[in-house]
């Protein structure tokens, strides 16, 4: 029972966050472009395609996590994305660039708090990805081979 609650809590938390994050960016493509430009990591010509298509990827990931379709793949993608965000935020912050995070709102400057938040979100993503292995190892059973995943 506790595993099920944990499983659903992780899915709902991550799924809702990704869905919301995608939604606000789809609704405000120019504001998201400004946030992407603020990171100063991609050429200006890339900003519009990123602003236009990336939010749909986030929203699709959110729906995937909530619906449970290809859950482990969705969890893996979410973990990779969160890892990418965490590295990007850390690099931008350490470069001294005062940029807008553009993660869950557009008045959220990059700070150690935003980096910590993204790092913490990695935990539920990793849990969903490695859930079976974790359960098996805690139950003392051998973990399934990777092909069965």
């Amino acid at each position: 029972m506790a595993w099920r609650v944990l499983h659903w809590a992780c899915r709902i938390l991550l799924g809702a966050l990704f869905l919301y994050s995608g939604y606000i960016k789809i609704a405000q493509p120019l504001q998201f472009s400004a946030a992407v430009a603020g990171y100063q990591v991609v050429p200006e010509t890339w900003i519009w395609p990123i602003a236009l298509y990336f939010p749909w990827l986030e929203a699709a990931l959110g729906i995937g996590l909530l619906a449970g379709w290809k859950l482990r793949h969705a969890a893996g993608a979410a973990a990779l994305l969160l890892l990418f965000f965490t590295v990007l935020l850390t690099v931008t912050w350490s470069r001294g660039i005062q940029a807008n995070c553009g993660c869950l709102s557009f008045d959220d400057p990059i700070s150690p708090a935003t980096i910590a938040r993204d790092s913490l979100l990695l935990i539920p993503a990793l849990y969903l990805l490695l859930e079976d292995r974790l359960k098996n190892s805690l139950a003392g059973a051998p973990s399934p081979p990777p092909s069965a995943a």
Partner: protein
Amino acid sequence: MRFLGSRIAIRSFFKTRRILLPALLLILAAAPILPAQDPAGRILGGSRNSPVRIDVFSDFQCAACRELFLNTIKPILKEYSARDKVCVIYHEYPVAGHKLGLAAARYVEAAHRLGLPRLLAVMESVFLDQAAWARTGNLEASVAKAMPPADFSRLKQIMQDPRIGAELNRHIQYALQQKIQATPTFIIRAAGKEERVDGYVPYPVMKHFIGRYVK
């Protein structure tokens, strides 16, 4: 005779009143549906009938405002506003503490009275030299080089006009009314939609966005 004259005068007064009174009542009744006074702001290009409208809230002492004006707004003015496709309206919003930003806004407001070409030239010069005058405080040199000496003398006279300060105050009040919290902020309106953007957006991005509404 005098009596007759005053009778005519009284009659004509009542006749005039018969026309004037309903007209006055009509005007008073229509007043609430007439558009309010245009909000503060200077049209840099295009017209209020352009399919896309961009309201920019900016501060001359802010670095991102400089980037936005020189790299994004200027090409938009050249590419779209000249064909009345995009209307760009500029609103001064000097951030508290940016004393030179406020002084620059005063020069620009005065330049506005010399016509659009002078206004654009002064804005460009002030933004281009931002780092220099922010360091030395010599704002006047940047303004002076944007126009012939005769125009600069006129501009200095215009600067004495107290209405310059009042107009800037109108800009600031309008920005506060719009709940602008940072500069640069712009509000873009097209096809009944509106998006508020805080920060710098490069021209290639704006070009793609405007291209959705304008050929």
